């Protein structure tokens, strides 16, 4: 029986775990032990955090008011903001850019997927990019945002949104919602008990290691490195104050030696520069980054969560989503019998999910179009993990993306990246040929029209932020 759970780490991962567990396991005592230093519990990626569209649902399920959270800035100059996706520039080629939207792209005709229809039109000589048929992408480009509609018949229900948040404000909100106070500060872990700075010891039936890459409980053993596929091994985080209305999307800009992440918030931008130390002189404030995952996230009484379990550069807002899913899995599997099947199942599911997100990240490197730069030329030439190779081969051959167990991203997301990177399937579905070309062109034209009409009716992002009380 599990009566006490200890959490080590007072950052966003620790408090998110605390909130999830207090709500799910009301009979269990939860002790949270704080750790010293900056909050790297999801990775040392700066003061801003980005989420995927599932996060607003998670917040609602856990009694956190989204509007309050957005306003809960740690400083007056850092308010939350909305995101419709991520803009990628410099990945498909030094000058090329594309958009990875939240939500559906286009609409199928009968049972034929939209990107197959697009491929057929393209084969007929039309120049088009599939993201141009996504409401989120168009709205982002025109700086508009409103929460989606609940009416499934409306095109305004075809997209989702993520949040850009001040991490300290997010952590404080999660902490307040959990109703808990930290029991003290971490000094040492003996394999069973945690000793606090004041000398007292705490026992627990299960320990959650939310201490980030330091992995104070889980330790250094059993870390599988992803360095052979993900060349960035340094990160420099920053905060850049900025006035005005933030754009409703994040930005990932590739350069010769890595990429720069920008997350616009109200009052400024969270920045993080990711680079490969072999290709750029050491930058001031650089933090080493050992990307990879723990081979067994749950060992004995310790479950590693967040960056203690998986450390992956946040090309898209997946770190909160991985934590969210890990917590849901853990709660599903608790209480675990001693030597029962639960830890093995947890590890199997967690590892598959992490590996598929890793593949999604590697995809951006493998399919890059920057020529004449050693880092990027090598990335194009590198062998990739087998499941990704199979995805790439099948897509290149006929525009299909096979999905495996525990995929965080859907086929549409993979296709948006592949299409954005300029990978064109050699052939489209034969079923698309059975549709007369005028009907096809009309279908595509109609989608564009409906989307443009809908976007014209949406408020500007600034108006929505103003209505939320986020900007004056």
């Amino acid at each position, binding site marked *: 029986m599990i009566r006490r759970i200890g959490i080590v780490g007072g950052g966003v991962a620790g408090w998110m775990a605390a909130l999830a567990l207090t709500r799910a396991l009301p009979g269990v005592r939860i002790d949270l032990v704080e750790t010293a230093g900056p909050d790297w519990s999801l990775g040392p990626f700066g003061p801003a955090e980005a989420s995927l569209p599932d996060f607003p649902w998670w917040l609602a399920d856990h009694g956190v008011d989204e509007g309050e959270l957005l306003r809960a800035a740690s400083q007056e100059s850092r308010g939350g903001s909305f995101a419709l996706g991520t803009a990628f520039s410099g990945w498909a080629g030094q000058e090329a850019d594309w958009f990875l939207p939240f939500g559906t792209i286009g609409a199928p005709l009968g049972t034929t997927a939209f990107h197959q229809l697009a491929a057929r039109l393209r084969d007929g000589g039309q120049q088009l990019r599939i993201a141009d048929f996504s409401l989120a992408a168009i709205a982002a480009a025109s700086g508009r945002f409103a929460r989606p509609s609940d009416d499934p018949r409306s095109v305004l229900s075809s997209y989702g949104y993520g949040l850009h948040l001040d991490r300290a404000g997010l952590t404080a909100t999660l902490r307040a919602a959990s109703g808990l106070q930290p029991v003290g500060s971490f000094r040492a872990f003996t394999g069973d008990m945690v000793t606090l700075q004041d000398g007292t010891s705490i026992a627990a039936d299960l320990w959650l290691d939310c201490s980030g890459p330091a992995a104070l409980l889980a330790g250094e053993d059993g870390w599988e490195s992803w360095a052979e596929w993900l060349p960035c091994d340094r990160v420099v985080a920053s905060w850049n104050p900025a006035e005005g209305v933030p754009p409703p999307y994040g930005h990932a800009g590739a350069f010769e030696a890595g990429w720069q992440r920008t997350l616009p918030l109200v009052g400024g931008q969270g920045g993080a520069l990711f680079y490969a130390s072999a290709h750029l002189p050491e930058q001031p404030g650089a933090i080493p980054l050992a990307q990879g995952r723990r081979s067994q996230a749950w060992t004995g009484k310790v479950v590693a969560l967040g960056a203690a379990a998986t450390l992956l550069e946040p090309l898209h807002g997946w770190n909160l989503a991985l934590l969210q899913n890990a917590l849901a899995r853990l709660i599903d599997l608790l209480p675990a019998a001693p030597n029962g099947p639960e830890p093995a199942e947890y590890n199997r599911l967690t590892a598959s999910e992490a590996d598929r997100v890793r593949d999604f990240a590697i995809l951006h490197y493998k399919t890059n179009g920057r020529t004449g730069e050693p880092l990027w030329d090598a990335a194009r030439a590198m062998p990739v993990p087998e499941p990704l190779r*199979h995805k790439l081969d*099948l897509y290149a*051959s*006929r525009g299909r993306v096979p999905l495996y167990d525990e995929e965080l991203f859907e086929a549409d997301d993979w296709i948006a990246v592949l299409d954005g990177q300029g990978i064109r399937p050699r052939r489209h579905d034969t*079923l698309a*040929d059975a549709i007369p070309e005028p009907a096809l062109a009309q279908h595509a034209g109609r989608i564009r029209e409906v989307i443009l009409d809908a976007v014209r009716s949406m408020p500007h992002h600034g108006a929505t932020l103003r209505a939320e009380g986020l900007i004056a």
Partner: protein
Amino acid sequence: MTAPAPIRQIVIVGGGTAGWMAAAALTRLVPAGIAVTLVESEEIGTVGVGEATIPPIRNFNALLGLDEADFLAATQGTIKLGIEFVNWTRDTHRYVHPFGEFGFDIEGVKFHQIWRKLYEQGRAREIEDYNVCALAMRAGRYQPPVSDPGSILSRMAYAYQFDAGLYARYLRSYAEARGVVRVEGKVAQVPLRAEDGFIEAVVLEGDRRIAGDLFLDCTGFRALLIDQALGAGWESWSHWLQCDRAVAVPSESPGPEITPFTRSTAHRAGWQWRIPLQHRVGNGHVYCSADISDDEARETLLANLDGAPLRDPFILKFEAGRRKRAWHRNCVALGLSSGFLEPLESTSIHLIQSGIHKLMALLPDTGFSPVERDEYNRLTDLQMQQVRDFIILHYHANQRQQGDLWRRMREMAIPETLERKLALFRNRGRFFRYEDELFAESSWIAVLLGQGIVPQGWDPLADGLDDDKLATSLSRLHEMFARAAQAMPRHEDWLARNAPARTPA
């Protein structure tokens, strides 16, 4: 680089259920300029007996745009709300695997977890009492589901039972009307291309030659193309699924009542199916020939009919297993030529349908890139394994005293994938469905509980809820479900009114 030419000719060999289902679906390619030819011989019989299906068959029919009433009338079809398992767990025991969902989740906690907790306290009925399909099965009633999520009837799902031979005939007229060319003849030779071993053509008796780019082997157990011509290999699963024969016979309907479900009854060395159609009942005894003789198996079958047999029983021989490569070179095997699993969960037609669906999605060009083939084979293997595990579960989790087969099944080592599922469920009723898994959580739960695997505990989230309130909710749910089932028309009356069988021509 120029892309290889698209496929222009698809040749289907074999005109049973698999062949005509494929032909009907492939008519969608005809407007894209692809010629579809089906070769069959009236001299070769098909294995079509009374066939039961699972709910996804409705998607297949919808894709073709078939009218349900017309289809039922043409195939002596009936409605299937689930399967009743008699004597499987132990003698005189019965349980049902109903389609559709159990109960409703309460405050985010799965219904079966809440049920488990209250059942422990003696405050819940059997789990099937909270499933509207199970209750309708028991009452012999049926009414189509509605899509309004507020209605109890939205919790239903259903499939069909029909005469597979009539279904093939029905699809034949559909396919021929839409441009599929049927060629009568028996295949005499299958010449292969010298350079790559691909099938060049099929040559019929009398030397008629039918060339093609892609060949579908729908020749049943004979596996004329995929095995006899191409030797694509076979992986046997007979160490897990030891039944290797079936003796089948149709019988007269016992009375006006037509049960809206399939029944499976365990015997000493196997099990017997009962599939009610509108005009008769299909029966078969699946058995392990190491445990009983054919004569004994036939006698067991005849002794357990509820109507007079309509012909002499006939014997089918088989081996559980799968084709190592269902897609090999330019040949794709569909139906029995691609693998065999006994019809315990009525998956035969679904496996055909799913193969067709995958093939349409991965249709190659004349370059036959290995990428599509590998993906097809990967997905096919995955699905066969998942269905195999589900079927093994029925055999493995038994407490039957009678018959050495059942002792062996209990004691055997099961696949690791199933072992993991069982361990998690035993412990606390947990269930993790794999990607694309055919049988949903409610199906596994029905069979796991039915076969006597009761979780030792339940989801602790269920402890956060008030037991008295839950007990009240549960009894209200049962009443609502039972009332909804009782209000439905009797199944045979619904059929007579909506889809009375046409006399076969």
